């Protein structure tokens, strides 16, 4: 077991290192962005003394590396500074803290829907391979991948919200406030996000199931007279899980990307809409903090998926 513990710590270290390097890169690149924050906050006509004072206050006149160090030492303590324009003066970590749970909620909601749908579709398609159900499922999957999630959102809004009136087309109830409210108001956005992902997952699962079912140990298992369902569960499905989970991990990057636009469409106060707002408002410290937070989320999920895969695959854990 200590070997696994060592591997985990090693990977964790790697993730932390990547975040550090990423934060550095983001910071440096952000510095090249056009515009002077002082002018953005104080206005174009601000007097030079005010601008100079602003620069001094925020260390904008120091060498770049020193600026990074200053920013980083604060960030490591959880202080990402304050918003410059969009939320004038509010602590950024506060902003992120308020918004992040919503993004994570919608993301997980969508992911869960995608997993459930893909498990059903993937298994059916593999079991009924070559027959009508398979073709139908596969075609749906191809269509699912081809629909950009923000377009699908509007189709859903059109059909289920404005049309049938079953779900709200705007406004999100945060889970902190009411879980049922969040599940209800978050259903359409989660569904929109889940569709393309479910398609990818289903295809992967189907391919993996078919692939494993052709391997020799399946014939051997059948030769022992094990029940078909037992073989499917313990031999086929169990071994198809590894590529399936791996793909889920890979898709998180797209999931988070899609969330950004979905949040805008449905008016969800999440990390994505924060980043978009701050992009428009040229609130660079917020953009920066959002980018780094997204990076951290991706790395965290990668680590988690990696651990699950290691656990699932004896070849990696032994």
């Amino acid at each position: 077991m200590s070997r696994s513990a060592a591997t985990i710590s090693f990977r964790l270290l790697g993730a932390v290192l990547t975040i550090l390097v990423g934060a550095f890169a983001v910071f440096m690149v952000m510095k090249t962005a056009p515009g002077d924050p002082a002018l953005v906050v104080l206005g174009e006509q601000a007097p030079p003394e005010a601008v100079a004072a602003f620069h001094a206050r925020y260390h904008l006149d120091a060498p770049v590396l020193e600026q990074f160090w200053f920013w980083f030492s604060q960030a490591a303590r959880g202080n990402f500074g304050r918003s410059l324009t969009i939320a004038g003066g509010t602590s950024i970590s506060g902003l992120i803290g308020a918004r992040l749970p919503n993004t994570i909620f919608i993301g997980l909601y969508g992911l869960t829907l995608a997993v459930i749908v893909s498990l059903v579709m993937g298994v059916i398609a593999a079991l009924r391979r070559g027959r009508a159900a398979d073709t139908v499922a596969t075609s749906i999957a191809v269509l699912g991948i081809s629909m950009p999630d923000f377009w699908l959102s509007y189709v859903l809004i059109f059909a289920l919200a404005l049309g049938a009136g079953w779900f709200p087309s705007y406004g999100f109830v945060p889970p902190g406030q009411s879980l049922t409210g969040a599940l209800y108001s978050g259903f359409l956005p989660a569904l929109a996000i889940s569709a393309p992902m479910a398609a990818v997952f289903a295809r992967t699962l189907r391919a993996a199931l078919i692939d494993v079912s052709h391997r020799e140990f399946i014939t051997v298992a059948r030769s022992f007279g094990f029940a078909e369902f037992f073989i499917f569960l313990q031999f086929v499905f169990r071994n198809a899980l590894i590529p399936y989970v791996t793909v889920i991990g890979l898709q998180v990057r797209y999931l988070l990307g899609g969330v950004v636009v979905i949040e805008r469409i449905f008016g969800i106060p999440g990390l994505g809409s924060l980043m978009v707002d701050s992009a428009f408002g040229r609130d660079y410290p917020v953009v920066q903090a959002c980018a780094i937070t997204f990076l951290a989320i991706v790395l965290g999920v990668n680590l988690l998926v990696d651990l699950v895969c290691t656990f699932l695959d004896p070849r990696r854990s032994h």
Partner: protein
Amino acid sequence: MTAPVIEVRGLRTSFPVEGGRLDAVRGVDFDLRQGEVLGLIGESGSGKTMTGLSVLRLLPEAAETEAQSLRFKGEDLLQLSDEAFRALRGTHLAMVFQNPAGAFNPAKTIAWHMREIFRRKAARAGRSEEGDAPRDWRAETRRRLAEIGIAQPSRILKLYPHQLSGGMLQRVLIAMVLALEPDVIIADEPTTNLDNIVERQILVLFRRLQKRLSVAIMFITHDMTVAAALCDRIAVMYAGEIVEIGATSDIFHDPKHPYTQGLLATATALTRGGRLREIPGELPGALDAPPGCLFEPRCPHARAECRAARPAMRSLAGERQVRCVLYG
């Protein structure tokens, strides 16, 4: 003469490939009797493995198997549904596969595999379908693994298949099949990957099983020496057909079919192993099979009539059968 445990008549198997159908087994007839070891010898590609798989209905759906009759202890296997046939596997009929590394579930330990074997065995004993393994299954596993020459069975149980060598896995696989104590074992090249000493141990084990429990064994191999050592009768296979059957000593001392003669000539010419290589020519491509005798292109005694039609099996004295026009 005891009644055959397995009776096969006219077994044919084909499956679709690009360009047509591939006939892997072309009308095979044989009996497998209780307590005997029947050797099935042939080059690779001769259809030996396919025959075994066809009898056990283990081929993929794309493959088509048909037979005039296929009986186990008199019961017509052809009439059985897939589910009814499944009930026979693992309990009465079992197979030892050729490639041990690919035979195990990579996600599960050896212990898990053995436990499932014992549960299967318990299911046969008439208890609930999902039988529970008897309490002492671990002890019995250790005993059987030791029996087959594994030094530290307890250590092996905790390991995963990828952590064991091919030879070790083959031994575990054989132990698994032996533990089931089935009525029929089809063993497909079970000792190919093992060294001499272990091979000897396993052959002894098969012999013992045969004597103790009267298990009927179909031993598929391309190794003449092993066949000579273990088998009571031998069937020689070529291009999907059985070309000669007879008692082992008869076949070895007096091979009738030209192909068998060629095999033995090669075997004696080489040292250990007797691998079959030197007969000039090749197996016919399965798609372009000639209408006449399949061996005719390589046969030193070929005659005009050989090319005309596929020769039928001729019965000779002493329970010998040969598929050749030279004998009537």
